[in-house]
């Protein structure tokens, strides 16, 4: 265990949605390399409170990389330098003494800044509300083992379902698109036998809601690199394929009635 000294943090401060915001620099010493990045911010905040200053607002909760609440742009990279790692799982041993570290909120039109490093990611909820579910009201479910799910299918669905909804994919995308998030949710359900009944309506509703809020995907692939769960952009291809089919199939279904 060793301590990091003389770290300079350039942190985005913005008092509210209408404030233009600015970077502010803070110096901090004696940070254990065992500390997590967010614990380092805790120490800084305690120091600020000690000086009578307002603490830096940032979103976080589980601190184990699963709730998707933490959302920091660290040195221009969503969730910082370590691949497949959420901000809260990043540890100070990845940094060295004397470094300057720049910390910003997610930058995306669809995610307005609420304060300092906190943004509003509600459009993700709107996408799920539009179709990211299986209609199965409580009480009516059939016996669970009635429908076997081939193991590879269950595994692929789980790979998609691992998305934590943090928004790093949007923050990483030059267009501010939300294709990886939406594709992960669509694919999770569209792969499973239980999800087939609503397969086409689901993808159509979710993609179209996504388009209301977010930019368009031009296949940069930055999202996959930024994703703390390393979700594959193959799911975007799957979603696009289903979306095209849906456009035909939904119409065919409607014309039959």
């Amino acid at each position, binding site marked *: 265990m060793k301590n990091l000294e003389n770290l300079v943090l350039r942190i985005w401060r913005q*008092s509210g949605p209408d404030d233009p915001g600015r970077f502010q620099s803070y110096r901090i010493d004696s940070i254990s390399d065992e500390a997590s990045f967010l614990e380092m911010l805790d120490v800084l905040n305690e120091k600020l409170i000690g000086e009578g200053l307002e603490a830096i607002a940032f979103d976080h909760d589980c601190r184990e990389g699963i709730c998707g609440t933490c959302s920091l742009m660290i040195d221009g990279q969503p969730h910082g330098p370590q691949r497949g790692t959420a901000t809260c799982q990043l540890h100070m041993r990845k940094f060295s003494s004397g470094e300057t570290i720049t910390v910003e909120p997610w930058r995306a039109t669809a995610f307005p800044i609420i304060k300092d490093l906190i943004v509003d*990611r509600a459009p993700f909820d709107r996408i799920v509300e539009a179709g990211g579910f299986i209609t199965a009201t409580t009480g009516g479910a059939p016996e669970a083992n009635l429908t076997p799910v081939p193991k590879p299918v269950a595994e692929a669905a789980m790979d998609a*379902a*691992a998305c934590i909804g943090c928004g790093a994919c949007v923050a990483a995308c030059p267009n501010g698109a939300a294709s990886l998030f939406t594709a992960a949710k669509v694919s999770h359900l569209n792969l499973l036998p239980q999800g087939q009944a609503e397969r086409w309506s689901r993808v159509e509703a979710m993609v179209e809601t996504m388009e209301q809020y977010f930019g368009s995907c031009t296949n940069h692939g930055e999202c996959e690199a930024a994703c703390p769960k390393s979700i594959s952009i193959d799911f975007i291809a799957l979603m696009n394929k289903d979306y095209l089919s849906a456009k035909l199939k939904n119409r065919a279904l409607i014309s039959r009635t």
Partner: protein
Amino acid sequence: MSPERKTKKAPAKKPAAKKPAARSSPVRPSPRVVLDAKIPPGPIAEKWDNYKADMKLVNPNNKRGFKVIVVGSGLAGASAAATLAELGYDVHVFTFHDSPRRAHSIAAQGGINAAKNYRGDGDSVQRLFYDTIKGGDFRSREGNVYRLAQVSVNIIDQMVAQGVPFAREYGGLLDTRSCGGSQLQRTFYARGQTGQQLLLGAYQQLARQIGLGNVKLWNRSELVDVVTIDGRCAGIVTRDLVTGAVQSHAAHATVLATGGYGNVFFLSTNAMACNITAAWRAHRKGAYFANPCYTQIHPTCIPQADETQSKLTLMSESLRNDGRIWVPSREGDDRSPSQIPEAERDYYLERMYPSFGNLAPRDISSRAAKRAVDSGRGVGPLKNGVYLDFAAAIGRLGRDVITERYGNLFEMYERITGEVPYEVPMRVYPASHYTMGGLWVDYELTTTIPGLYAAGEVNFADQGANRLGASALMQGLADGYFVLPYTIGNYLAPMLNKPIPGVDHPEFQLAEQAASTRFGNYLDIRGSRSPDWFHRELGKIIWEHCGMDRTAAGLRQALSDLPALYEEFKTDLRVTGDGASVNQTLEKAGRVDDFFELGMLMCRDALERRESCGGHFRSEYQDSEGEAQRDDANFAHVAAWEFTGDPMKAVRHKEELKFETIHLAKRSYK
């Protein structure tokens, strides 16, 4: 965020002299409450059916006229809210998170129990019932636990239909594994992310109802008071965490599904924001608080690395399926683990509990780990851990199988410690994890305030003095999907066409004023210590005296230290920033304030319970082998505390536990 959420201006920060933080609206002790669990008549296996056959119903067309508030969107809250909305009620969901999907349930790793008997290994409702009662050290209610075991099978059906990608066998059927305290394989799982997948399932169902307009979601909105009028719960008061606005909400019925209070210890495996405020505010308004001293210390968490650490990380119990726990046999053995030969290792769980071995229940495993470390055989740089070793399993099954089962947990461990568990054993130590105590509820999950319900970890009902692994997710979903939707109807039916008090009622106005004043005062104290500082100090006292090993002397010490520290909190707190925009320091101040009062009640409860049972271990009450010694003659009851204005003066009531089906026995895992 919803556009219509603001009604009131937040209190602006104004300079003021130092004064103590005001408490919430005046406390009126409830009229004497009789603790009737309302267990339905009949043989245990028929009670729930009998209840359902007799309960009152609400016509589908009338349901929309009933407004139900659900506070919390974890497994219990999301499943309850979605189901109530499907039934037709007008549901309002509140969460302090930005999205319902972020509730702490998301972090559960290991799995969920159900008596499906898919393995044909002899499981049944009766067995799950028995294991849960025994696991809880015979301190839970038979009627509730039996119902929990019964509906466990429906939960799996429901979650599969919802699209939860549970682990599967090659033939496509559901896979299961074991969890502590059971010799059966009844735990369903989705990699190491079971809680995430279950919560996403329930959240999706809730999202559908939000999209359909049947549920109104209030996110980033925190309950800061509960309002009672004429002896029933009339609604809640919330604080908008973005604008600071305080607002009232009236409803026919209110559900608290707000999770546990493990964060009273400061360091715990709970998410940072988990807190007791909702339950505590209800307690202050007349809801009895049951068995606060029943807390669970989980045996396998990553040991604390330094002073600034903010939380501890759980290493799932499922790891004990394949990992072996050991410490060096000799005190002060500094060799690296690979250098310690087999003969000089103490696999103490396997030695002491041969039939359950590494899968001994949590309370027992935690105490054993504490004793190993206290005896000078702890491992790691700070000598504060024990090994959890996978070498044998990797040798037997190969690295790929271990990766498939636990890969994400191994990665998580490596990120935090910088060590690779495929190569060196993990180091683990017990940490606060779960709380069995909570708001007292009857069979219908009603608190002692009519119209106020508690579901999930926030109630006390099913886990007794110790919870078995994979049973919290089960309980949360049982409460939300299969219990509340029935019992709430039974309460609402007679209220048809009877008006309820609106938010203009003076009680709501009083509660709003009290909440505004309380948060204004935190800002006005202008002392020298942050809420986090107080929380850390509070946690140290509770961990030391009301943690794994409790004594009368220690608890008395805590009961003298806590009020002193609390006084300091009220006069020396420093909260910077203002009350009219996001202010996490201010949020924290409110939560720590309530943790203080809870901490005192916990210690009082632990002092009064002069026996050892489950997670509550009083050193004075142990047998010759160091195992917990219950006192069934005097303590086979639930302690339910009534608030009287000061937690140090709370009044203890008893609900005797009646065991009609199960024979009280010494809990042995040898």
